[in-house]
């Protein structure tokens, strides 16, 4: 008992003043005004309880909560804007398109450049591999978003793939696909084939994740 009290006081001495401010700011940005204070209050109450035992675990718990809550809160906010289903699908497609575009430019290429800078000039193959890997994560997230916002629970997964994911995926990934088939771009054939053979399973895998999230949301 005495040991517990001592541990708790040691932990509280090293505890941060409050929850991670970046996470709070993110939450404030994605939430509508109505329940913002209540939800942040709930999170803070649990965060303080957890941080008495382990401030580090409390921080990671807070971040996990924000990341897992974000899709629900964004969807709720979009629904509160009274956008019709077609408009919602358009917003989702645009969002996924922008995500892929900026993911490619800011994250995938930066990761490949950073890797190339950190290693020798001969590591062209590995920097390409890093680029592909990071890009496929983006493709999977895009597939997940499309599935989460557009898939119907009334039809089988394969029908959703054919009638929703395939057309939406073609629109969202049009620039990347064009770059892959354009002979003017200096991509070797092997790279193009590798890209396609990785992108399709990543897209479908992402869609599976989106369906899982959708089921949890409902």
């Amino acid at each position: 008992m005495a040991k517990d009290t001592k541990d708790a006081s040691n932990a509280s001495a090293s505890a941060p003043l409050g929850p991670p401010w970046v996470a709070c700011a993110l939450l404030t940005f994605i939430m509508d005004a109505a329940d913002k204070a209540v939800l942040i209050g709930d999170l803070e109450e649990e965060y303080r309880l957890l941080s008495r035992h382990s401030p580090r675990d409390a921080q990671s718990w807070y971040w996990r909560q924000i990341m897992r809550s974000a899709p629900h809160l964004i969807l709720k906010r979009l629904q509160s804007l009274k956008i019709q289903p077609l408009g919602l699908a358009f917003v989702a497609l645009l969002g996924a398109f922008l995500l892929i575009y900026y993911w490619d430019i800011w994250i995938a290429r930066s990761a490949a450049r950073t890797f190339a800078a950190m290693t020798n000039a001969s590591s062209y193959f590995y920097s390409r591999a890093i680029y592909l890997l990071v890009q496929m994560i983006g493709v999977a997230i895009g597939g997940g978003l499309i599935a989460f916002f557009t898939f119907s629970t009334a039809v089988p997964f394969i029908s959703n793939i054919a009638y929703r994911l395939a057309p939406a995926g073609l629109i969202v990934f049009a620039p990347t696909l064009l770059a892959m088939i354009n002979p003017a771009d200096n991509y070797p054939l092997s790279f193009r084939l590798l890209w396609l053979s990785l992108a399709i399973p990543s897209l479908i895998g992402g869609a599976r994740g989106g369906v899982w999230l959708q089921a949890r949301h409902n």
Partner: protein
Amino acid sequence: MGRTKNLGEFEILVLAALVRQGSDAYGVTIRKEIEERAARSVSIGALYSTLSRLEEKGYVTSRVGEATRERGGRAKRHYAIKAEGQAQLEKSIRALGSMLKGLDPWPKTLRMRATRAPAHR
């Protein structure tokens, strides 16, 4: 276009937690109740969007409670199940019960049905 009045699986869990906790239930306690009893991890965002949907359907009512220091001076929102919510919960549980009745041993039966299902399409 009105929302469907049927309950989803997570909505059933939330309403059941509200029945257990009475009118003092709020986000933290509802989340803990579901995590402990249903052994399932629940995000606060999923919980609040479900509670707000249940409120729109007219199954749940809410009131703003007191602000406390451990919440950073922010107020709680207490939720309580309404009579309509309780009736719908009972209806859903009855429907589930009658669907599961006679499925003994049910895991084997369900497995057989799942493998047979594509042939009917």
